[in-house]
């Protein structure tokens, strides 16, 4: 049995007191250990940002990459070793801004990757510029008169891109977040978990007090069917007095990318030994050129 403690690292987080990243970090550790995944079976890939330091604070294989680039790194890792559980963790600037193109392509490829986005609607690490999810009018260091870019809608984009699992959680409801992440990990295919992450230093207006009274759980809505694309589209746009969490959309049985790569049917690439080249192989290869 894997325990929560197994993920404990001696390194202490440097996040601000009250930062939502603590909850997400714990939720990840709970989810992984409750699914009985050991740290060495997991690869946690991150970008750059406050939240992207999560692997550094966790006893887990970590690959802390570049701003916006965690998904393609995760894709390569997964194709090289689909025996490993690959989880991306990164911020909204990273994932929905610089990395948005990669996300759209990862979603349509349906690699079996869990993508957790710490969506604090601001740039934390660089100290308070507006992000792709900052609301219109958001005053920040790069939008002193208020942002005029309309925010991205990560749920709607993921749905349009063909994501086969789309969820949301809120670290103040830790157990719920753990369950959403667990389902995302268990899902076969690309799974987005958008997390409403309070940033207490640079985005107090959209922190705990803002979300607490607004969030509700889709699974508690009678009649909500997460396999219904039209319903999902509608709810993906709900944002205001009520903000939905839980599983927006899930379609099961879609083959993953890995499922469809013939070479991978032999097992993880990294476990496949180097080919012992035979004289026949050489002959076959040479003959192409003759």
């Amino acid at each position, binding site marked *: 049995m894997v325990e929560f403690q197994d993920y404990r690292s001696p390194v202490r987080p440097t996040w601000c007191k009250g930062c939502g990243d603590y909850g997400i970090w714990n939720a990840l550790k709970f989810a992984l250990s409750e699914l009985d995944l050991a740290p*060495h079976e997991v690869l946690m890939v991150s970008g750059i940002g406050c939240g992207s330091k999560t692997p550094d604070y966790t006893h887990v294989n970590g690959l802390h990459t570049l701003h916006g680039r965690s998904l*393609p790194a995760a894709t390569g*890792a997964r194709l090289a070793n689909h025996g490993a559980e690959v989880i991306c963790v990164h911020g909204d600037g990273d994932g929905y801004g610089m990395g948005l193109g990669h996300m759209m392509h990862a979603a349509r490829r349906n690699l079996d990757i869990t993508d957790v986005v710490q969506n604090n609607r601001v740039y934390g690490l660089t100290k308070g510029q507006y992000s792709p999810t900052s609301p219109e009018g958001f005053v920040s260091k790069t939008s002193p008169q208020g942002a005029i870019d309309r925010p991205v809608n990560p749920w709607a984009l993921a749905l349009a891109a063909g994501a086969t699992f789309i969820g949301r959680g809120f670290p103040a409801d830790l157990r719920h977040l753990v369950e959403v992440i667990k389902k995302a990990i268990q899902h076969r295919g690309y799974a987005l978990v958008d997390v409403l992450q309070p940033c207490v230093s640079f985005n107090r207006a959209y922190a705990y007090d803002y979300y607490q009274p607004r969030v509700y759980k889709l699974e508690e809505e009678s009649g909500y069917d997460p396999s219904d694309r039209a319903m999902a589209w509608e709810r993906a746009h709900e944002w205001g007095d009520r903000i939905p969490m839980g599983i927006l959309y899930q379609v099961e049985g879609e083959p993953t990318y890995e499922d469809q790569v013939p070479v991978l049917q032999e097992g993880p690439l990294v476990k496949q030994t180097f080919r012992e080249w035979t004289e026949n192989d050489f002959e076959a290869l040479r003959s192409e050129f003759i």
Partner: protein
Amino acid sequence: MATREMTFKIGGEAGQGVESSGAGFAKAFARAGWHVFGTQDYYSRIRGGHNFYQIRVAETPLYSHVDSIDLLLALTQEAVDRHCDEVVPGGGVICEECLEVDCATLDKRDVSYFPIPLTDIAKEQGGAEVMRNTAALGAAAGLTGFPLEVMASVIEDNFRKKGTEAVQVNLRVAEAAYHWTQDKFGEGFDYELPRIEDAPRRMVMDGNQAIALGALLGGCKFVAGYPMTPATSVLQWMATHGDRYGVVVKHTEDEIAAMMMIIGAAHMGVRALAPTSGGGFSLMTEGLGLAGMTETPVVVVEAQRPGPATGLATRTEQGDLLFVLHASQGEFPRIILSPGTIEECFDAGWRAFNLAETYQCPVIILSDNFLANSVRTIEKDALDFSGVHIDRGQLLTEKDLDALEGEYLRYAYTKSGISPRALPGHPKAVYQATGNEHSPDGQLTEEREPRRLQMEKRLAKLECALTEMRGPVPYGPKKAETTLVGWGSTYGPLRETVDLLTEQGESANMLHIRDVWPFPADAVREALSDAQRTVMVEGNATGQMASLVEAHTGVNIDHHIRRYDGRPFSPQYIMARLEEV
């Protein structure tokens, strides 16, 4: 046999099959026992423009194309207009009767004119208009007495995937043109290209294929790339062979993703490669630094083309040397190989992975369009397949890790700078890899001393790697008045220049630099120590290799021959420019 050597040029529009018939013809010559050098020149467009494929054949090994041509196969008026002048006295021009040819001038220059109803012949045999290229090949074969059955065997191979009908029509067209031409002009042309009996079977290969083949044999199991001329065929060759030989090939959304994917794959333990050209490499720049910082063994093939920006998409240049050498912020070790021959390409293909894994750093194979897409015949054993070996460097096995006592330190300080590497997946070696500066355990640090030590550790690897860099290759007499210096794809043209100069009684030799970084300064200095007059020949405008040589060896380069019009060097071009310097 009248001919010891001759050059064909097939010229026409994109879409007329110039490239495919050129490649087929080249293969046919090889099958008939001739040595071949084939090179192409085409426009960045799908139809129209003016493309040509040039095939040089000889009884002895060839290393370059030449500027003069013996037989022109002109499929269009433009081909006639552009290339008739290049035909040597005694040579000939094949084209449709309807094209305008200045016969008087040809005559004066003793060039034969062979008007042939190529399209009509094709149509008569039930072929489409585009089969005029097959007719042209048939005609050329007829004119030179080239064995029809060899030509037929190549046609069969090439059209097999299009179905028997396609094979049959093409065969008929070739045969008809062959006989028509032999009947009409058989005696009128002085060149003869019979089958060379008892010649060994040789391979016809281009630089991209050789790199791909070397990489495949060297254990490459993952290729991520985005198509970009002239590197595309590495990606495509791998895609075609992947399923059979266990390589996963991913066409990515862009080159940033390609670089990140090979980092991800290499980090997990798989030998991973990304082929690209300069534009794609620009996008890989940031990722290259990540590979440097995380000490991830990735291999990038950078096939150069003329820049800046889109530049000349389908031409050649050697303008990216200093770029790949300094790309990405900060300082970290990288290894750069610049093969110049098919054999060196093959070696670079597998060596790159051994170097990458041994030194845990990115390795760049720097090639260019001329090398990537020119074919040459090589002996069947020229590529030492069984000599390929896999050296993964200090890679810890499962057993090593099982036996590990104490904490695993991914970035342990060592004298060589190389830290024993564990692949993620072992319970005793759970670690962080990060693009931030880190301590030996892989944990992010911002402190002074670990930073300094990690920098020194990483850079120390270059010293070690230097011992594995292959020194420059000399050619020609040991002592000479003129030493031509080159790198990468200039090898062939320079070698033939040395031969020409020697034939003319001039005293010249050459030095070919093949492993570029870490720069084998001692070996180059030593090799140039006897040089009286050095002439650096390189395909760029600013003399990038010259500046490296001078900076690292203290040797002064006396003269420079630089080309930057997108075209490769030929021995004739170099000879002409040598007169000026």
